[in-house]
């Protein structure tokens, strides 16, 4: 397989909810090790696009290609099994369970033949991962609700990092975080690049978008207004694309 094939390729994606046109003709390519930011006003269709790529919604029309081959996701599980991980805005973590069980939620390691949980190995792998990513938590046995918002998002991003083999989708991952916590989360997001993963991130924070992304894709009321190289554009240009006002 040639490495210049895009990891993710969206062609003419359209999505309607009854009479509501949420996404209209979006086409976008993402390469390995590339971070693309998805920006737009509230209701522009960013979350809907993320949900389409993560298998939650099926597009009304258009194609999704992964590593060059067309895919149809029947559910979030089928997208996940193809190496796509999502970090949700509202943290899809089980609050009363320990960090290591959240890391392996739904994909617990077991020991044959009785399929017993291999808790010691899950703890060990979680420990190695949080050390490698420098996610600072008291212990992998800590209960999620005893962690700060930043630590929780650290766990959520670590989980995506661990399981993604191709693509990580993040929908406003730092919307609920403080300044220091956001900086830490951005570090984690940049480390996804080093792992040669493709990253699609929704963010309302343009400073963050310019710090993290290689390219910026602007949506307005479901329409794709344009895609810009981050290094070759300015906040002013992006703002006027978002608002439609020059």
């Amino acid at each position, binding site marked *: 397989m040639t490495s210049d094939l895009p990891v993710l390729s969206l062609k003419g994606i359209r999505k309607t909810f009854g009479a509501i046109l949420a996404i209209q003709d979006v086409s976008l390519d993402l390469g390995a090790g590339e971070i693309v930011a998805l920006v737009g006003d509230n209701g522009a269709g960013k979350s809907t696009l993320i949900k389409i790529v993560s298998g939650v919604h099926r597009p009304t029309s258009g194609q999704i290609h992964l590593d060059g081959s067309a895919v149809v996701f029947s559910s979030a599980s089928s997208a996940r099994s193809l190496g796509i991980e999502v970090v949700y805005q509202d943290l899809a973590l089980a609050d009363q369970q320990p960090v290591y069980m959240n890391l392996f939620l739904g994909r617990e390691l077991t020991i044959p033949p009785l399929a017993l*949980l291999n808790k010691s190995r899950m703890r060990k792998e979680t420990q190695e991962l949080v050390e490698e990513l420098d996610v600072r938590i008291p212990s992998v046995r800590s209960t999620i609700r005893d962690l700060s918002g930043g630590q929780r998002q650290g766990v959520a991003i670590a989980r995506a990092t661990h399981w993604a083999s191709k693509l990580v989708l993040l929908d406003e991952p730092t919307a609920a975080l403080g300044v220091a916590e956001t900086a830490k989360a951005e570090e984690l997001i940049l480390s996804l690049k080093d792992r040669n993963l493709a990253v699609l991130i929704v963010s309302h924070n343009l400073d963050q978008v310019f710090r993290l992304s290689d390219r910026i894709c602007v949506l307005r009321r479901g329409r794709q207004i344009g895609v810009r190289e981050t290094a070759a554009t300015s906040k002013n240009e992006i703002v006027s694309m978002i608002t439609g006002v020059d």
Partner: protein
Amino acid sequence: MSRIGVPKGFDLQKSVIYVGFFTIFLFFSFTLHDDGFLTTRNLTNIVLQTAPATIMAIGLVFVISAGEFDLSFGSAVAVSALAAAVVLQDYPMLVGVLAGIGAGTLIGALNGVLVAYLRLPSFLVTLATLGLFAGIARSMTNLRSIPVINDSFTGIFGSGKLASVPSLVIWTILAVAVGHFLYWHTRFGAHVLATGDNPRAAQVAGIRIERVRFLVLTLCGATAGLAGILYAGRLQAAKYTLGESDLMTVIAAVIVGGTALKGGKGSIIGALFGSLLMGMLNNGLILMGLSVSDQMIVRGLIILIAVAVSLRDTSH
């Protein structure tokens, strides 16, 4: 911050049962010493009497941990005991056992289908099936008691002993061991906890939460079936009243035992001690000479305290 002064990682909800259990044990040991509380015979009696409730509590821990509720296990116990007793009149022991446990399991599965696949609230579904099967238990036998005269059955599920350990104790230990194991060391247990904790997170993580809900309610029916068989074995008879009065005791045992009403957290060993605590209270209050109505009042107050502790710990 509601945990000031409490060491980090200390789980009040899960620890309170052990403190409570030993405090009340010591209290009765001193105050009821002359009434024979501490005799081996009396203590053994407490364990034997609580065996069916302990086993029902195990099923309920799974249900509540998954974020659901079951009110119907009492009448599932009665129907199971009656089914076993009726079948044992004409068939060998094994068939009777299968009939009893099968009846409970089917009732649980019915709850499970209604809750998981028709998406009806478990509290209301099981309130309805509680009434439904209480009625069926009554009409099955015209309110009569059915004797159980199968000796191997009443030995294995009642008065028998293995190496001088009463069979009811063995069943209790077995059920607690299997329950604890399933709860803590299997993928199923992990999925039960995740489903009760955050169903949406569980679902996006690929856990089939409907299946989990169906299975916990079915399991609770199966434990009610086993409890029914133990009642039939110990009393050498089955009647529609079996299990009926256990509703409050079992719920209290589970909640005092550290299982969070909101789901996502619980303990099988805690429920065992919760059940033993309820049995011990019952026993102690009788030895103290309290009337039945006073006993009910004291037990009601204990449940209130338990619920208060449970909610206090989950509200921050």
